[in-house]
């Protein structure tokens, strides 16, 4: 049952990072991303890697979960690496036929791959340690100033929360519908595009009907509890900024300063 309450990424344990306010984690992640884009020498990358490893250790999330997140971009990383390796002009160190590798090419390729890996792993720390609901709460609070230019921040956040909450419900529903139709002889492994698309109809129709019915019920239940949008609404679990959030923020600022002082400068 617990599985149904959380979505995809979140790794439910207790750690100093889990306990941080979602806003701190979001700001921290932004700072980290900025730092990764700013550093341009190897000392800088070393600092960023060391910081990442420290954060992972503090979060107590097994490192294999971070690596899992990288699977989806492995192809991108390989391409980025290879393109840079072969296409960057400069001092040639190895060549064969029309291919040649330059010193500058090696340098950019390594940095490019490192940068991608750090970005993905850095941001996955946030998604692994924050529940989707507190993340949207945090975002709502951070973007509240946009209300001034008439962006309905609360409504957007509410829509995100509901959507996130419904993903596991609809996944479960989909599983049941699929089984019910398989019991009626549908072959979901059918080959051929048209056949495949056709076998989706008995799946999608009940799923959509169920989704609309649930949306309707939810709207009714919200109305019954006098939901009137974000104005004057209080929270059951208000976000609280604690001393540890301040500490985390200072640490991130210190880290950024380090990156700026030591992490920038030309090669050698």
């Amino acid at each position, binding site marked *: 049952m617990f599985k149904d309450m959380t979505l995809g990424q979140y790794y439910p344990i207790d750690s100093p990072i889990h306990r941080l306010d979602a806003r701190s984690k979001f700001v921290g992640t932004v700072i980290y991303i900025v730092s990764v884009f700013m550093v341009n020498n190897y000392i800088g990358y070393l600092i960023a890697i060391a910081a990442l490893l420290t954060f992972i250790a503090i979060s107590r999330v097994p490192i294999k979960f971070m690596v899992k997140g990288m699977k989806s971009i492995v192809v991108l990383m390989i391409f980025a690496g290879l393109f840079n390796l072969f296409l960057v002009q400069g001092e040639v160190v190895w060549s064969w036929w029309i291919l040649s590798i330059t010193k500058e090419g090696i340098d950019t390729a390594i940095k490019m791959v490192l940068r991608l890996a750090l970005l993905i792993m850095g941001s996955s720390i946030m998604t692994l340690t924050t529940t989707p609901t507190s993340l949207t709460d945090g975002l709502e609070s951070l973007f509240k100033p946009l209300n001034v230019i008439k962006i309905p921040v609360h409504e957007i956040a509410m829509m995100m929360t509901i959507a996130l909450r419904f993903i596991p419900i609809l996944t479960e529903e989909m599983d049941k*519908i699929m089984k019910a139709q398989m*019991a*009626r002889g549908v072959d979901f492994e059918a080959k051929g595009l048209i056949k495949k698309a056709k076998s989706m109809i008995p799946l999608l129709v009940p799923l959509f009907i169920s989704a609309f019915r649930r949306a309707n019920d939810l709207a009714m239940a919200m109305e019954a509890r006098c939901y009137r949008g974000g104005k004057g609404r209080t929270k059951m679990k208000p976000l609280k900024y604690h001393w540890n959030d301040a500490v985390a923020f200072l640490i991130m600022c210190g880290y950024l300063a380090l990156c700026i002082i030591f992490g920038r400068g030309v090669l050698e």
Partner: protein
Amino acid sequence: MSLILDHVSYSYDVGTSYKQEALKDINIVIPDGQFVGLIGHTGSGKSTLIQLLNGLLKPTSGNIYYNGQDINDSDYDRKTLRSKVGLVFQYPEHQLFEENVFKDVCFGPKNLGLDEKEVNLRAYDALEKVKLSHDYFYQSPFDLSGGQKRRVAIAGILAMKPEVFILDEPTAGLDPKGSEEILTLIKNLQKDTGMTVILVSHNMEDVASYVDRILVMNKGELKMDGSPKDVFKKTEELSNMGLRAPEVTYIVRELRKKGFPVDDSAITVSEAKETILNALYHKILNE
């Protein structure tokens, strides 16, 4: 020719931290033509068990044989199995999708690759069997009442001409009259066609007067297997599993305890009525 479960266990989400043992070492033999009631508290594993029977789930360990063949052998034809072992799920909303009732019932037989004439014949026949009025044949299945939707769902599986017919809580959410209609219908189908029926329910009253045999599940284990009379005698054990024998069994037993000479093995209202009247008659004669 029968359905055999041999040391069958099943766990959900094997290999994750959410692993859940839903069935533990189940052994059952169901001969042809039997009407079996599968009973247990919510979460006891009833739905899991029946999904194993038509190959929607594969046992984590153990084997299931249908007509002498292991249904999980790699060369076993599971698509045919699903037409032979028909399964009606709990919520008709999960399977109805066509624009009208008749088309929806045609869906199953069509998937079996039958020609159009045969498909239409079977659909018509199935809808007749579930006694759905002709007025509804060309209506959208979504506009029907709960009881009618359930009939259409049942017809959808019947049209595939199953040899074993499994229904998961077919009376859930129906009023008493609707429940009785559906159960009577299933009983008649079983009598007329001679097919094996497995009826899943958490309601004892439902099954008492209809089934030949009761299987009681609790927390993934098969706890009892016997005739309704035998099972309902064990009121103590049943109540430990959060179940209750039909109300009349308590009444006749109480009467007997108070010295009224009734037969306390009565399990249905009509049986109870008969034995009470009988006892009264003898009492009057004796006085």
